[in-house]
């Protein structure tokens, strides 16, 4: 079995990329492939609480993030500095399975993988 890390660096609603990254993670989990998700840079915005994309006729991404746990992806990794730089309140997020990583821990996580999928 090869381990996959999906690195999601883009914000939630302006394009379908963040959603398509999550669908990839869910697919890997559904096929019992070891998979993790790392949010960094603008991808951090996927974690803001109280997202209401219905006004733009879009579906909430927070729901897909919540679904990860049910599919066996127990934590979502997120880059702490990306959040700090953006002033994101790390205590109030749309999911409660986030594990924050500093630069070094991100490097270690990447080094453990067989494959990276970049979104």
């Amino acid at each position, binding site marked *: 079995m090869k381990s996959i890390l999906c690195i999601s660096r883009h*914000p*939630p*609603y*302006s394009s379908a990329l963040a959603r398509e990254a999550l669908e990839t993670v869910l697919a890997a989990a559904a096929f019992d492939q070891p998979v993790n998700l790392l949010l960094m*840079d*603008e991808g951090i*915005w996927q974690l*803001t*609480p*109280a*997202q*209401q*994309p219905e*006004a*733009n006729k*879009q579906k909430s991404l927070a729901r897909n993030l919540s679904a990860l746990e049910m599919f066996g992806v127990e934590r979502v990794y997120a880059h702490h500095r990306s959040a700090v*730089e*953006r*002033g994101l309140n790390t205590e109030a997020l*749309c999911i409660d399975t986030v594990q924050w990583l500093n630069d070094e821990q991100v490097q270690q996580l990447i080094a453990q993988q067989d494959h990276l999928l970049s979104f």
Partner: protein
Amino acid sequence: MSTLHTVNKSPFSDQSLHSCLNICSSGDSVLLIEDGTYGALGSAPTFKLLQRAIERDIKVYALESDLMARGLQSQIAQGIAIANYPAFVELSCQHTTVQSWY
């Protein structure tokens, strides 16, 4: 003779809002849309530039439905007004031209 500037990129990753604020004139308006609405946060790297623009008699707005989609409506910095689509339309009438920064 004035211009409505729309900006749809996040200033945390892209220079468009920075460029816009350097070029816009007194009497112009700036409307933050789509990912541009992240520029309404006080934590944005363009925050000071934006405050200076407001002092130069440039009005700054953020599009309501894009703020709501991103969960930002309660967090926007002072001096930025919330605009809905009808207001977007009327802003584009009040100004003679529209420049889109993307």
